[in-house]
C-alpha cells in the first residue's frame, strides 16, 4: 500500500516538473505566433503541449488543470483550423492562461491538493468560454466530413472524461450516427467504436422497447441479496459488511478533508544529465582503480627495498597518471553542472512584450547565444540582474513610439541580448537603441538624491557616472512606474555581480542607445591560475601572472613622494603609483623601503601601478578555490589556493585592488 503511494508521488513529481518545463517553453512560442499568426508549426507545437497537459492531468484527477488546459486546447484548435485568427487579444488570453496553469502546478507542488479554481482562474476560464462562444468567421462553408471528424473527437473526450450524465448524450450520438450514414453513406461509421450494449441493440432491432430495458434493469438484484438467497452468507453478515463499507467511505472522505498541504517531497533541485556524460565518468573511475593497483604494487616493491631507483621512476609515472585522471574527473564534473542559458533567455521575449504593452511602447527583442552553457549556480544567480537590466532598457532606454518616429527612428524599439563566452568569462551584452544616458543628468540627480556629493560628482568620469543607476535609492524615472523606477532593483544587479566577482560596464551614446556588458568569471568551473607566490611579512600571497609586466628592485632614486598622489615609482620614462601590499592587507612587512623590496609592475587594461612585496618566492600553478561568502566582499582577494606545503594561499585580485578607491561610492 505504502509503496503504491510512493510510486504515485514519484510520477506526480515527474509530471509537475515536466509540465512546468514545458510551460516555460511556451512563452516564446506564443510571441512567435503573435508575430506570425499563420505559423502552423508553432501552433501545432503549442497545441501538442496543451493536449498532453490535458491528458496527463486527467490521469492524476487534477480536474482544475485538465479543465483549464482543455479550454485552451479548444481555443488553440480553432486557431489551427483557421476558424479564428491569433489576434493580440487571443494571445493575451493564452499567455495569461499559461500563467494560470503555471500557478496551479506550483500550488500543487506546494502540497495544495485542492482541485478547484481561484476566482482569477474562474474569470479567465469564463473569458475563454466567451471567446469560444463568439463565432468569429464561423465556418463559412460546411464540409460534412469535417463536422463529423469534430464530432468524433468530442466523443472520444466524452468517453474518457466520464463526467456528465451519459444517457442523453448517447442518444444524441445515436442521432448523429444516423445523420452520418444518411449524409456520408453507411461505410462512414467511425472505426474503433465499441459495440452498443445488448439492451440498446435489441431496441435498435425493434424487438423490445426502452421501457422494457429499464424495467428489466430495476429487477436486477444487489450482489448481497443474491448471495443471501443462495445461502452463501447470512443476511447479518451482509449488513455488517455494508455498514463497514459505509464507515470506511466516511473515514476516507474525512481523511481527505483533513489532509493538510505539505510540499510534495522530491521536488528538490535536480538536473538532467546525459547518460553519455555519466558513462565517461565510469571510464575515468575504471582507470583510477587500475591506477590504485599500480600504487599497491609499488608499495609492496618499495617495502621490499628492491630496485629503489626504478620504483621511484614508476611511482612518478603513476603519480602523473593519477593527477591527470583527477583533473579529468574534476573537469568533467564542472561540465556536467552546466546548463543551457536558454532557460533564462526563453522567458525574455514574453517579459519584453508584456512590459512594452503595459507602458505603451513597442519593443522587439533579439537573442543570440542562447545555446551557451553555464554553471547551474551562476545560471540561477544571473536571472534577476539580467531581468532588471532588460526591464530598465525597455522602461527607461526605449522612447515612446511617437518620440521615436519624430527622431527618425523605427517606432518599434529594439533590445538585443547576446551571450558570449570569452577566456574564463561569461559575458552577456544587453543593447538597446533608445535614447541613451546623459552623464550630466545622472550626476545632478545623484547629488540631489544624496547618493554622491557635489565634489564627487565633479571628478567622476562619465563611465562611472553611468553606473550611478545601480546605486540603491537612485532612479532616473520622472514618474514611478509599476515596472521600474522605484530605485530598488537595479542595485540588485550590482550586489549579485559583486557576490559572484562579476562586473558591469556601460557604454552609451545620447540618442543612439545603451549597451550593458555583464561579465562573470566562470568561477565554479575549474580555474587554474599561474602566478607568482610572493612573501609579505609572514604571509604568502599569489599574484596572477597575467597582470605582471615585470618585477624589479627599484633604486632609491626611482622612488619619490608626490604630495597629492602619494608615492610613485619611475621606471624608464613611466611613472607608476606605488601600492604597498602590506598596507592594503594590514600585515607587518620585512622591509620598510621599496628599494629593499621587490616591486611588480602592473600595466593592463588602463590600470597601472607598482605593487610592493617583500620577495618573490616561486612561480606556481594553482587551482582557484572559493573562500566562501564570508570573504566575498574583500576587493583585493580573488580566492584561495592550496599551496605546495598544504596551507591556503590567498590569490590577489589586482583589478579589485586597484579599482577599490574609484568605486567606493558605488558601495554606499
Amino acid at each position, binding site marked *: 500500500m505504502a509503496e503504491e503511494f510512493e510510486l504515485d508521488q514519484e510520477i506526480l513529481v515527474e509530471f509537475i516538473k515536466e509540465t512546468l518545463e514545458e510551460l516555460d517553453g511556451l512563452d516564446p512560442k506564443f510571441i512567435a505566433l503573435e508575430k506570425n499568426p499563420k505559423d502552423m508549426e508553432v501552433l501545432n507545437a503549442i497545441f501538442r503541449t496543451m493536449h498532453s497537459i490535458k491528458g496527463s492531468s486527467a490521469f492524476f484527477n487534477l480536474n482544475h488543470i485538465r479543465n483549464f488546459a482543455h479550454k485552451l486546447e479548444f481555443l488553440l484548435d480553432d486557431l489551427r483550423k483557421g476558424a479564428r485568427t491569433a489576434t493580440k487579444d487571443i494571445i493575451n488570453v493564452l499567455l495569461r492562461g499559461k500563467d494560470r496553469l503555471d500557478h496551479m502546478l506550483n500550488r500543487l507542488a506546494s502540497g495544495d491538493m485542492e482541485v478547484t479554481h481561484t476566482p482569477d482562474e474562474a474569470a479567465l476560464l469564463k473569458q475563454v468560454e466567451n471567446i469560444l462562444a463568439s463565432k468569429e468567421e464561423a465556418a463559412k462553408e460546411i464540409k460534412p466530413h469535417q463536422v463529423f471528424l469534430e464530432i468524433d473527437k468530442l466523443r472520444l473526450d466524452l468517453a474518457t472524461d466520464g463526467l456528465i450524465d451519459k444517457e442523453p448524450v448517447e442518444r444524441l450520438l445515436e442521432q448523429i450516427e444516423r445523420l452520418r450514414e444518411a449524409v456520408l453513406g453507411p461505410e462512414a461509421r467511425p472505426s474503433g467504436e465499441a459495440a452498443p450494449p445488448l439492451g440498446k441493440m435489441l431496441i435498435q432491432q425493434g424487438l423490445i422497447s426502452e421501457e422494457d430495458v429499464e424495467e428489466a434493469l430495476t429487477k436486477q438484484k444487489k450482489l448481497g441479496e443474491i448471495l443471501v438467497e443462495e445461502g452463501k452468507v447470512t443476511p447479518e453478515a451482509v449488513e455488517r459488511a455494508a455498514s463497514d463499507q459505509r464507515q470506511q467511505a466516511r473515514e476516507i472522505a474525512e481523511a481527505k478533508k483533513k489532509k493538510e498541504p505539505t510540499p510534495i517531497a522530491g521536488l528538490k533541485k535536480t538536473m538532467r544529465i546525459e547518460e553519455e556524460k555519466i558513462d565517461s565518468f565510469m571510464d575515468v573511475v575504471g582507470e583510477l582503480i587500475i591506477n590504485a593497483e599500480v600504487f599497491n604494487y609499488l608499495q609492496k616493491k618499495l617495502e621490499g627495498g628492491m630496485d629503489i631507483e626504478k620504483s621511484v621512476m614508476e611511482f612518478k609515472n603513476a603519480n602523473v597518471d593519477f593527477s591527470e585522471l583527477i583533473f579529468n574527473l574534476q573537469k568533467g564534473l564542472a561540465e556536467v553542472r552546466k546548463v543551457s542559458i536558454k532557460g533564462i533567455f526563453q522567458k525574455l521575449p514574453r517579459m519584453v512584450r508584456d512590459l512594452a504593452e503595459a507602458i505603451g511602447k513597442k519593443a522587439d527583442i533579439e537573442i543570440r547565444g542562447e545555446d551557451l552553457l553555464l554553471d547551474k549556480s551562476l545560471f540561477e544567480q544571473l536571472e534577476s540582474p539580467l531581468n532588471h537590466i532588460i526591464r530598465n532598457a525597455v522602461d527607461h532606454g526605449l522612447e515612446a513610439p511617437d518620440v521615436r518616429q519624430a527622431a527618425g527612428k523605427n517606432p518599434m524599439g529594439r533590445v538585443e541580448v547576446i551571450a558570449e563566452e570569452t577566456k574564463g568569462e561569461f559575458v552577456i551584452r544587453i543593447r538597446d537603441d533608445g535614447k541613451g544616458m546623459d552623464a550630466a543628468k545622472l550626476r545632478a540627480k545623484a547629488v540631489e538624491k544624496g547618493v554622491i556629493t557635489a565634489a564627487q560628482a565633479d571628478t567622476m568620469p562619465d563611465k562611472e557616472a553611468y553606473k550611478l543607476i545601480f546605486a540603491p535609492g537612485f532612479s532616473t524615472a520622472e514618474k514611478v512606474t509599476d515596472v521600474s523606477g522605484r530605485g530598488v532593483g537595479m542595485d540588485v544587479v550590482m550586489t549579485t555581480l559583486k557576490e559572484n566577482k562579476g562586473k558591469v560596464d556601460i557604454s552609451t551614446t545620447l540618442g543612439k542607445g545603451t549597451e550593458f556588458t555583464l561579465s562573470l568569471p566562470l568561477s565554479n568551473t575549474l580555474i587554474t591560475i599561474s602566478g607568482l607566490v610572493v612573501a609579505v611579512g609572514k604571509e604568502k600571497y599569489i599574484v596572477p601572472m597575467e597582470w605582471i609586466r615585470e618585477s624589479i628592485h627599484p633604486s632609491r632614486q626611482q622612488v619619490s613622494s608626490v604630495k597629492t598622489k602619494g608615492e610613485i615609482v619611475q621606471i624608464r620614462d613611466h611613472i607608476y603609483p606605488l601600492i604597498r601590499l602590506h598596507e592594503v592587507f*594590514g600585515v607587518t612587512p620585512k622591509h620598510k623601503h621599496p628599494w629593499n623590496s621587490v616591486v611588480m609592475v602592473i600595466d593592463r587594461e588602463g590600470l597601472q601601478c607598482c605593487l610592493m612585496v617583500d620577495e618573490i618566492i616561486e612561480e606556481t600553478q594553482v587551482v582557484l*578555490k572559493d*573562500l566562501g561568502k564570508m570573504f566575498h*566582499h*574583500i576587493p*583585493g582577494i580573488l580566492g*584561495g589556493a*592550496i599551496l605546495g606545503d598544504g596551507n591556503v594561499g*590567498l590569490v590577489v585580485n589586482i583589478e579589485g585592488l586597484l579599482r577599490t578607491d574609484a568605486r567606493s561610492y558605488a*558601495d554606499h
Partner: protein
Amino acid sequence: MATDNKGGEAASAKASAQGQGLEGKYLTFVLGDEEYGLEILKVREIIGLMDITPVPQTPVFIKGVINLRGKVIPVIDLRLKFGMEEAEPTEETCIIVVDIDDTLMGILVDTVSEVLDISHEQIEPAPAFGSHISTEFILGMGKIQGKVKMLRDVGRVLSPEELVHAARAAGQ
C-alpha cells in the same frame, strides 16, 4: 531526513524559552573557565590546530582559512567572538569542524571535553544575569553531576548569514 532536521532546529529555538526540546547529545568544550555545549548533530569532526591563513579586512574573530582536505573553510575564534581574551595555543587547542546551514566552518576552542547526553530534566532556563551579560545565545543551563554547564546556541552565534554580515561590516 534533511527537512526533519531543519524542523528540529526551528523547534529547539522556539522552545528555548521554556528549556524544552533541548535534550540530546552535546559535545562540550572549554573556553577559559567556562564549559559550553554544542549540539552533536552540527559537529562534523574535530581536528588539531593547524596553520591558519589570515584574511585581511575581516573582523578579528575570523581567524582566517584552513585547508580541510582540499576544501577551504573559515575558522572562527570563539573566545574572540564571545569577547574573551585571545589565548596562546596549547597542546589541547583544537578546531571543531561544524556544519551550520550547509556551511562548513571551524571553531577554535581551548579544548574539547566530552559528549554528554543531557536529558530534559537536567536543563533549566537561562537565569537572568546582570544586564551586562547577554543571555541571548544561552539556551539553558545543564546540571550534570552537580556541575553547571551553559548550553550555548552555537548555531545562532555562528549563523553564516550573520557572520557574512559581520565580515562585510568590518571590511568597509
